[in-house]
């Protein structure tokens, strides 16, 4: 979606087990949900 929105130089960081150990862990595991850092640049 970032590239569709016109951003460039897109980077994605490694997955983080955001919900691990929280009560939302079960639902998160069901859909392989993890947290990620993203960066992208608006073209000049």
């Amino acid at each position, binding site marked *: 979606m970032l590239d569709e929105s016109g*951003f460039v130089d897109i980077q994605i960081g490694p997955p983080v087990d955001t*919900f691990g150990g929280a009560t939302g862990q079960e639902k998160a595991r069901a*859909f392989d949900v993890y947290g990620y850092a993203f960066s992208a640049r608006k073209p000049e």
Partner: protein
Amino acid sequence: MTTDDLLVDPETLREQVRDKYREVAIDPHARFHFHTGRPLAAKLGYENAVVAALPDRAVESFAGVGNPFSLRRLQPGERVVDIGSGAGFDSFVAAAQVGREGRVIGVDMTPEMLAKSRATAVQLDLHHVAFRDGLAEALPVVDGWADAVISNGVINLCADKQAVFAEIRRVLRPGGVLQYADIANGRIVPPEALRDIDLWTG
């Protein structure tokens, strides 16, 4: 895109999100389906010294899903917009990185979160940080103002993500950077689940 094209009604979703994060603001030590506060900041790799320097009010309601500063550190003097700033945790981290020559505008739609973040900014005597009432889809920031836009676990809670990204592009200067954290799923979510608004916030 019209409201009919979206998976869930944007205003209904906003009301649910406000309700959830009002709880996080008022009773941050209650049990939520996500982690909060200092333990979460440590889990997500925030710098210990930066977090330790912040008062509890700035950290206890933090409910991010990643670290928007992990791929790029903000530069001194940069102007930053924090979308869904909550009680201000990421805005205060940003404020430390950009320094007093920079500016940080946090935007949030939950009054209880705005009250906390504004009180903390006063407590810390931070004049280069301001918090404004607003929506991710309609940021109260002029065109091209920001060198960087940050956000943490917020865009996934917006029904119209294309509108959010278009708004981010509007407030960024040419060459400006979007650096944010959010959740993503590795397995396909069934259509009926995508339209179940309760799953968006729980």
